């Protein structure tokens, strides 16, 4: 059982918007097409993406995403931060590229999968 805050700490993520970081993470979904995330992500997933547009907050809310992680050190747009604060959606930034971050996360979580 990994929480958002435990993952943030172990991966050295920069938490730019702090929602409920005590949430338990069910798995991870990686995609930069928001239409695809809406179709395939699952409740309480972490979502790794390069997209920084305010729509990521809406998609995170609709899909019950536990936290959004932006890779390559990308910063969310100002409006994205405002919406995330209002909706209490956690947004974190990783300096890693998507491949490296997903790999580290997979190594952390694979032992926990049933």
């Amino acid at each position, binding site marked *: 059982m990994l929480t958002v805050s435990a993952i943030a700490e172990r991966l050295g993520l920069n938490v730019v918007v702090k929602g409920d970081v005590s949430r338990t993470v069910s798995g991870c979904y990686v995609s*930069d*097409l*928001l*239409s*695809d*995330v*809406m179709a395939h992500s699952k409740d309480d997933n972490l979502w790794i993406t390069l*997209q*920084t*547009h*305010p*729509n990521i907050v*809406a*998609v995170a809310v609709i899909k019950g995403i536990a936290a959004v992680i932006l890779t390559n050190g990308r910063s969310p*747009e100002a*409006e994205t931060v405002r919406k995330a604060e209002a909706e209490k959606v956690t947004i974190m930034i990783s300096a890693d590229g998507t491949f490296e971050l997903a790999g580290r996360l997979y190594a952390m979580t694979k032992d926990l999968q049933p």
Partner: protein
Amino acid sequence: MTPRRIINSALGKGLHIIAIADHNSAENTEVAVRTAQELGITVLPAMELTSQEEVHVLAIFDSTENTASVQEIVYNKLQDGYNDERNIGYQLVVNEVDEILAFNNKLLIGATSLPLGELVQSIHDFGGLAIASHIDRGNFSVISQLGFIPPDAAFDALEISYNMEWRDAAVQFSNYAAIPWITSSDAHNLTDIGRRTTKFLINEPSFDEIARAFKGEREIHW
């Protein structure tokens, strides 16, 4: 695909007004607009721009000067790199009689670093119309990239691709009925010109009349 050939093909298909939109570039529009005046058709200078989110947006302008101003903004925000002519093809700049003046070696196929909202604002700042490209497509459309059309997106119109019929669009995009819809050929070669057209019931084939149609003051059919 030179301006003269495009215009001749459009004339052959009986079109009255077309927009010529290269990806992230407008270096052929001045020649196109001049040639169109000579041959008796209206060409609107345009570009198909790529936002940071890789959303394609058609930008249509009233003048080549305004088009050039937005082109400059776009060139400054275009990702670094050079065009690979072997894989992407030549990016030509030509004159009125189809002679090659230059090869544009910028990475026009790439994205800009302009967020969608800023991109649309830049188009509007120079009096242009911002149309969300091929919203029914599974790539490079505002819906594929962003899941849905942001409520504050400020598009003047939405383009449905030639692949989709009106009746299907009416079902799939009923949420977006408040924004005018057009359809177009999205022709990337001469043969495809006119494979899809939109009818505007307007007083003359001009930018201003198209803009009025988008405001609901003229009828649009396809």
